[in-house]
């Protein structure tokens, strides 16, 4: 049978893509704890405070008590969906939430917080995405739990809703707080 080699290109491209998808899929199944940083200290950083635009913030500003670190952006529709739950947590749970504003426009981000209200103790502008990459962020939103010494204890990928909070995050927070007492 005669055939042209060029006709095999689509097949080869597809097979290559499938192998990636297969690998990616397995990685995602390990979604519960994919961060290499679990039980490691928060990576250090020097980033501007979103609201003031001037003040520099570093990892030290986040350390001291059990807290949530939430990665968000105005370009991220999931963050809008997640937002009411974060507001609720910050209002009712007596826990600080720090925001990492990931690769965003500062003006838009401030407007966004004004519009949807601001649950964050403060947000830092991660314009270049360096901190997000150090944290191993896959996309927004992502939420990390840090303990009082600034060690990352838990990572959640995707929006936090009532169920995720109750079943995945709150137990960790309660456990960490229990250890402190």
């Amino acid at each position, binding site marked *: 049978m005669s055939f042209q080699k060029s006709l095999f290109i689509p097949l080869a491209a597809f097979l290559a893509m499938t192998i990636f998808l297969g690998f*990616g899929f397995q990685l995602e199944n390990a979604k519960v704890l994919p961060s290499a940083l679990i039980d490691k200290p928060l990576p250090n950083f020097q980033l501007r405070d979103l609201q003031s635009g001037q003040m520099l913030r570093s990892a030290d500003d986040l350390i001291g008590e059990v807290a949530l670190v939430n990665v968000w952006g105005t370009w991220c529709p*999931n963050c809008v969906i997640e937002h009411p739950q974060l507001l609720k947590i910050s209002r009712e749970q007596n826990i600080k939430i720090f925001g990492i504003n990931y690769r965003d426009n500062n003006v838009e981000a401030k407007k966004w917080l*004004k519009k949807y209200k601001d649950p964050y103790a403060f947000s830092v502008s991660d314009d270049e995405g360096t901190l997000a990459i150090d944290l191993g*962020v896959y996309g927004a939103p992502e939420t990390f739990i840090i303990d009082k010494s600034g060690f990352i204890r838990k990572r959640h990928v995707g929006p936090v809703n009532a169920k995720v909070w109750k079943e995945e995050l709150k137990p960790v927070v309660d456990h960490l707080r229990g250890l402190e007492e």
Partner: protein
Amino acid sequence: MIPELGNFSLMLALALSLGLAIFPALGVRTQNVVFMRTGSSLALGIFFFMLGSFFCLLHAFVNDDFTVTYVANNSNTALPLPYKISAIWGAHEGSFLLWTLIMSGWTLAVALFNRSLTTDITARVLAVLGGLNVGFLAFLLFASNPFERSLPFHPQDGADLNPLLQDFGLIVHPPMLYMGYVGFAVPFALAIATLTAGRLDSAWARWSRPWTNAAWAFLTIGITLGSWWAYYELGWGGWWFWDAVENASFMPWLVGTALVHSLAASEKRGVFKSWTVLLAIAAFSLSLLGAFLVRSGVLTSVHAFAVDPLRGVFILVFLVLVVGGSLFLYAFRGGLSKNRANFSWQSREAFILSNNLLLVVSAAAILIGTLYPLFYEVVTGGAKISVGPPYFNAVFVPLMAVLFLFMIFSPFSKWGDTKLGLVLNENKWWMLVGILGVVTTSYFFGNNVFFYGLLLKSLGALILFFLVKNLLQRVKNLSASYTGMFLAHSGIAVAIFGVVITTYYSEGKDVRMEPGDKLDLSGYQFEFFGVEKVRGPNYLADQGEILVTRDGKKVALLRPEKRFYPVAQDVMTEAAMHVTPLRDLYIALGEPVGEKAWAVRVNVKPFVRWIWFGGLLIALGSFITLFDARYRAMKEKAAKLFPLGVAT
């Protein structure tokens, strides 16, 4: 009892699908005409049982049968009836039931309307569709069964439908989208049938065209509705987010667009046949890939369904079998037709070729952007990166600008060769007037001039100019295909104006308003009267009241809402809008910021409706081509040749 009946119907449909995948193919192999013709009755049976099963789930929803887990998770006694019905496709299992029902519908349609095909090709097409039905039904029954029960302990009331989905847009968006996705299975099946038969001639292109146009039109409507829904329901006035799930529907649309055009060239001139077959395979493969991305949880997004590893593995294996198998077949058989390319670089063939290249490159760029985070992670062993709108806009918009440039010449392009210089020379003054018109109107009405905006608007104006000019020359002799092309291309121009003007000239303000406060924006005055509590069927709401006036005259009284759904424990922003063809007034209620003060977002969005109107024009044009006299003549000719009918 009823849910078990639904489940049993699914099993019967699976058995019949197995029969459909096997018997007609066996008939082709053994040259047995009786076997070849079993296809239509089997297809009818599959559709019948799928419909039965769908009605069983409908029954469970309407009667609040919370013993069915899927109903308990997605409905509630207080949910209004239309949403109880649309809740069927509100989550993974039920939406896949709808998907499979639609698949069986297209299969039946092929079994009914195939008179112009030979018996053996019909048998092959139906066998391929049967095989796809088997895959979908097996997935439905074994990995996402909507009829599973939680007995003996079942919830007294349901968890309610996600409030985001309690909306008219979401009642119609998924069925349209699935009609498109699954509709591409028909040209796909025909491509596979002709490849296996080794008969890659113009007849298959002629037969594929109406089916492709129909599926593509449905997909266009689905995407348009999705964009419209996102605009008013996500509460911040955006209409396209380059979200992974949007991309999943946009990629098959782009490749489908390429297919619609290259089929024309294959039918009329016998060129690009091998390429067209590849596009037919690609369009359906991307639909399946979209399903994988949305349902496996590989990518998170607004629309993502619950993650289940088993489902992901199942779809991935199915994807490899279907796509890998067909590309394997293509690699060995795709070269059977020898193209005798004989056209100049100014010919319609050349234009269609550039259209195809640009569309396929755009689709590939979007595919790369969508999958890049995954690739990056695999290659670097866990390092993660995120790709957002900046990438997609930077890549997609310039490609489209070049595409629109070619589109200008499409109405008067000719097969073989076009006297391009002559046409340009004849119209140079008109073209100049058009561009100057765009520049001056933008300058006077927009306050601002943006180069990219001007470029795109000028392209849009020129596309419209040549379309209308060409229409006036041909107005006495309009075929359905020509009318369809005219409408679809005008739709693109209309959408260009909508997108560009909304993007560059929208005005918006976020303000704190107390009762009596006034705000001026774009010549309108907005007066805030305050907020009162209202009660809906399954929610409580804060409803604001805002009077909009212009030059002292009342324009509208708008009532945006902030709704709280107690069962789902969710808060939703229900924006209020006043709509005219030239602009939307869009008001969304934020949070309370004081005793009686509220955060209010006010937007004036000029021309935003043109985006969706353009989308609908495109779909309408594509539907109209189905009525072309060619296809009717084809049927009549076939009826004369075979007075008893062929293969029905």
